[in-house]
């Protein structure tokens, strides 16, 4: 008999060592997330994947699945909190979806749609953030960074480099790059790196490719993020 956990009343099998997120994804249950990516070690910072495990809030992406757990995922109060956390990410940075070239391919935007986010709710911070357009093939727009650290992990774990890091404390957190000048052009990143393509928002973009896919034909224009996410991440798990 395979070991199982219960998620929203469904019995979900899991293998020893899997997190709740991994077990759920394999079983076709979507748990909203932004900082989680199946190819990289979990981070647990965005807090969108918070589920109730035996009554206690836990991050599904880091919490190990254990026999007998009762997990609540798709519940009204949890989704309301997830919506507010997403709104926090929107007001913290400067996100102008209509003029962002990532629109329609952006996971932050897609999660917001999925959670039925209709406004910012919180007052905006209007933080002053710079752009780094120094690199010939890549662009960093710090206005859109949500500190998920996917670029940090992809560079370290997949590319074998240390191009990115998150620096600072609290609301002053910011993405930095590993070069003496502090500019992306002086790092050893290449447009072929995983780290260049992993950003869930429009903070790291590949130059000269904008609008090659027109608006209306982009990933989340026709599918919700839950379906897209399950389709791609189940494959990743099977690798």
């Amino acid at each position: 008999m395979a070991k199982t956990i219960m998620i929203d009343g469904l019995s979900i099998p899991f293998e020893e060592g899997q997190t709740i997120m991994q077990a759920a994804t394999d079983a076709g249950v979507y748990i909203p997330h932004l900082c989680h990516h199946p190819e990289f070690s979990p981070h647990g910072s965005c807090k969108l994947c918070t589920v109730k495990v035996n009554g206690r809030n836990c991050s599904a992406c880091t919490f190990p699945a254990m026999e007998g757990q009762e997990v609540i995922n798709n519940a009204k109060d949890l989704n309301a909190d997830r919506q507010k956390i997403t709104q926090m990410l929107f007001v913290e940075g400067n996100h102008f979806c209509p003029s962002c070239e990532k629109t329609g391919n952006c996971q932050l935007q897609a999660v917001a749609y999925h959670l039925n986010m209709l406004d910012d709710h919180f007052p905006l911070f209007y933080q002053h953030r710079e752009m780094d357009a120094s690199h010939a093939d890549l662009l960093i727009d710090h206005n859109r960074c949500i500190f998920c650290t996917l670029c940090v992990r992809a560079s370290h774990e997949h590319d074998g480099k240390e191009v990115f890091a998150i620096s600072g404390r609290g609301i002053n957190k910011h993405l930095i790059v590993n070069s003496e000048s502090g500019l992306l052009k002086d790092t050893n990143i290449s447009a072929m790196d995983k780290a260049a393509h992993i950003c869930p928002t429009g903070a790291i973009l590949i130059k000269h490719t904008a609008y090659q896919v027109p608006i209306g034909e982009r990933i989340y224009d026709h599918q919700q993020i839950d379906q897209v996410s399950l389709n791609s991440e189940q494959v990743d798990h099977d690798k």
Partner: protein
Amino acid sequence: MQTFIEDLITKNNYQATHLLAVLRAVQTQYHHIPKAAIEQIATLFLIPRTQIIGVIEFYSFFHLTPRGQYELLISDSITDHMLGKHEMTAYIEQKLNVKLGEVRTDGLVSFDNTSCTGLCDQGPAALINGYALPHLTHAKIDQMADLINQQLPVSDWPKVLFDVKDNVIKSSLLLAHPIQPGEALHTAFKRGLKETLKEIDMSGLRGRGGAGFKTATKWQYCSEEKTDEHIVVCNADEGEPGTFKDRVLLNAYAHHVFEGMTLCAAIIGAKKGFLYLRGEYLHLYDQLNAILADRLKLGLLGQHILGADVDFDIEICLGAGAYICGEESALIESLEGKMGIPRNRPPYPVTQGYLGKPTVVNNVETFMAAAKIAVNGGEWFAAMGTEKSKGTKILSICGDCDNPGIYEVAFGASIQSILDDCGAKDVLGIQIGGPSGTFISNTELARKIAFEDLATGGSFIIFNNTRNILDIVNNFTHFFAHESCGFCTPCRVGTSLLKNQLDKIVNGHGSAGDVVALEELCQLVKTQSHCGLGQTAANPILTTLERYPELYQAKLKKISYEPGFDLDAALETARRMANRDDAATHLTQVEEG
């Protein structure tokens, strides 16, 4: 500089875990961390420069841009405010000719705020190049101004300026009848280590940091991990505003604390221990190292302690201004030379702590209690206190009372009895356990200090009826926003939103829905945050909103909505550019109705 850093790195054995120690030395020498230093440290430690920049920007005491040769920091704790911090700040600005938050143009002095310095019983307090300056007065500031203008090194300043008092006022189990160095270890070895752990179990001792996990259970779990590389960590990063008991314990009872750590090491099988000392207690660093050297000479540290098959050494690591490092897993990250970001759990430190090794992290007071229990037995300790909270609790009492200082009270003591002890009159309320604890009003004085009622790490701040509750809450809320590590969204963004929302209300810009919005935000930050900091950051607002809702309501404007955006202020740039300031260039926010 090149040789200075080479020597530093050699002294630190090329161990990148010592990054904080290296950066502290560079900051002290150059009053910032120069770019060239970052490059050199990265090369010699074989770590990416981004890790170094991350650490510099994380800890308040490190800077990328030059500070003054004299770095003056004034404590921004509410207790310092109550003792005249604002007035002292104004006087310093005038005397030293430097504005708060700035470096003087000649580069000689910089002046800024810092979070609570742990001198709440003798404030207003400050730090000069890291060293504690208690009880600021106009005369002392005059003297400091002279010393700075003469450019006399801080090490040559009169000792009287740095005279930190212990103020131990009430002693009980722990503070009365000190034990002799080695006494606890002798007794434990004689009785047997397993039996000694049983005594600690029987004593009912629970962690004194506030969370209250049973100490014997923690030691037992850690000892069961199969490895010969266990670690003992003493958490002396007491950053909770209003707390200063560890400062006193480490000044007057350091042998007890080290003895407790060594006892723990013997029981769990650890060879390596750390005392993580908050940077604000730099003034204790040399004397603590001297005590460690004495203990080594006495055979109470090092190899074959007291002839037994126990080897143990203790290293003192200094923090660098980050409240979050009081959280045990953030503290471990900091010990590893990283930013103090709390880890995901599981795994817990008892299975995977420092460098992945099973680690016991306990409070200063817990180790001291364990040492005394080893000598006097579990029953001696358990005879005091309540059913669920055995023994005594050492409180740091400050604020509005006649005799601020250290009070050791039996668990179960009523708040009223404590107020009587310290001479508090006309009490409005008490902040128990610091900002992350609970604010109680003067109608709750029959409540008790105990894990089952009012749990506390030791902070006990008394406010009399002349104090304004919203000022207190505002100070605490700003503190949390400043100290949030920024790892998780709810705390990183939420604590700053709380700060802004509370400012809006306190400054008289709130309208009908704003208190409701504030409370909703509090609940979100409390339930969704990653660690204890975020989970308790809303407590000052929640506990006062529950008791004094009318105070918040009274601040609200009688209009249904006031935007968070100031239209008129936003036009200021346009007015300047147009060189106009007539009525037509101003906008009214919302018509008052």
